[in-house]
């Protein structure tokens, strides 16, 4: 039997995902969050875990380099991938928000300047709302953009809101609910259906 490869994004999401897999009986005994290894094989040697950067998970799955993956909805919205988005794992929950200074008011006469790590998502959102916008793509520490006058508002994911608060920003609008999704390659679902369906059904029963 061929092995099923699962891609996880390094970080907290991965730890939760490994815990979920363990609770349905798929155990990785040499896994520990601190390990620098990028590939793990489960005890029955039928399932392989690989760790990649979160934005790359859909790419690996779409191209069939791995069979399934766990990734946040934010990544899937930003870069559309041709995959089955089979389960909402209901973990890693947060919200995609528009944030800015408390007193900021949307001015419809002027182009809104948005700093974000999610340029496509932000652009689509404002287009749909009919707000003219100019999106500036940033790599991180997005909160700085309005403070330093680079942008009017930011679009980012917000979990507790602490980073925003400590930098003097507030959520102006909630855009989308974000949570981790189980995605599956469109070919693998059919060619390795037995193994994959076992995992899907297992996870479905605990989410």
């Amino acid at each position, binding site marked *: 039997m061929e092995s099923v490869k699962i891609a996880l994004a390094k970080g907290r999401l991965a730890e939760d995902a490994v815990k979920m897999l363990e609770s349905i009986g798929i155990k990785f005994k040499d896994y520990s969050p601190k390990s620098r290894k990028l590939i793990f094989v489960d005890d029955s040697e039928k399932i392989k875990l690989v760790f990649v950067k979160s934005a790359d998970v859909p790419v690996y799955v779409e191209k*069939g380099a791995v069979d399934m993956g766990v990734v946040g909805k934010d990544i899937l919205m930003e870069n559309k991938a041709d*995959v089955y*988005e*089979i389960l909402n794992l209901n973990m890693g929950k947060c919200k995609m928000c528009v944030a800015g200074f408390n007193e900021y008011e949307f001015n419809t006469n002027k182009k809104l300047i948005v700093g974000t790590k999610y340029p496509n998502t932000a652009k689509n959102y404002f287009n749909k709302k009919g707000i003219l916008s100019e999106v500036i793509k940033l790599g991180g520490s997005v909160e700085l953009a309005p403070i330093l006058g680079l942008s009017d508002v930011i679009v980012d994911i917000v979990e507790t809101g602490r980073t925003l608060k400590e930098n003097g920003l507030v959520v102006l609008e909630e855009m989308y609910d974000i949570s981790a999704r189980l995605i599956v390659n469109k*070919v693998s679902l059919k060619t390795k259906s037995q193994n994959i369906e076992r995992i899907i059904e297992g996870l479905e029963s605990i989410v």
Partner: protein
Amino acid sequence: MVFYKDLFPEGVEDLHSEEYEFKEEIINCIKKIFKSFGYRQIVTPSFEYYDLYSGIEGTLSKDKMFKLIDNNGRILVLRPDATIPVARMAATNYKSCKDYLKFSYVTNIFRLNNTQQGDKREFIQAGIEHLGNDKPDCDAEVIAVGIKSLLECGFQDFHIDLGQIKFLNSLIEETKLNKFEKIKLHNLIENKNYGDLKEFLAKADISPRLQDIFNKVPKLYGKPEKVLMKARSLVINDEMGKALDNLEHVYNILKDYGYGKYIIFDLGFTEEMNYYTGVIFKGYVNNFGEVVLSGGRYDDLTKQFGAQKPACGFGLNIDKLIEVMSMYDVKKEIDCYTDYLVLYRENAREKAIKICQDLRERGFIVESDSYNGDASFYIKNSTFRNIKEIIEVNGENVKATNVLKNQINRYNIKQFYKVLDNKEILVSIH
């Protein structure tokens, strides 16, 4: 000064002689199959008016087309799809023809795929279009040609996903959703997004009975008999029942071809090109995550050009196919070679050229060059061009150096021909 390093756009590639020869061989093999089923090859222009594509419902996204400007300011498009031009051609040139039209093509397709994702922006597609025939036998034949093509290319481990677009469409028509909600629902089912589908249905104004059916549709894939049985229990209108009957009919014909084992049903999938109206299918090679073959029935496409011809067809992505072949090592080693390199001094030129011509007439690949009497440079470099034998012509004498066997023979011209003709009888080289 131009930096040639920067002159190579993404998504295109040079094809070297061995690779080209291999590709040609694959294409010829597939062409032969098309021909043996009576499909006749045609070519449509590489570019046509943008209006042809943009005016058609259900075509490729406009962002994905390569556009050019004509001198009169009209926009042209490099062929982004093979079916639409063939439908256009059939509808405009054979409008009153009552008989079946069976066309085949091998052509390059241009698409502005996203860069940096490893997608080709120019690729070769080979396919067939069967117009004027609305029988399930036509659908089955088209699929059978596809399966045969994959088999002849040396694949065993592949499957065809077979669906019927009317099943899902007529189910969605039962709801009172608006257009955008319908598209959303369609997408959720197609992406087998069980979680969000459930949520969407719960929020939308849909009866519990329908909700229950929609939740089950994404799971309708797998072995044909099993899927049919499950799907029959979900039928709530005539159209859905008819769609299943049609699908079963096509499947039964495919079984008579002996191809039943390659078929998997999936009632929840759709196509990027949504001009399809009936049976649709996609071909996958196991362990290769991408589609190599896709097609379906498109009864209404020719209507948009003023004709009414039911039709079915498929396209095979040759570049993807070759990619899988190299992955599976089905790829045969192709050797580009030269049988003879004839070297001559000026005084023997006439004789040498005569020898070249005689050799070519016998079917050998022959190159020639003038030299100064020292062949060592040519012998040293013979591996690069893969030359088998070097022949030096000097007056009436011929010196033949077999590079592979490291053997030197000396003849006069008469003897040379004699040996050659004997060799031909003993071992036919080609």
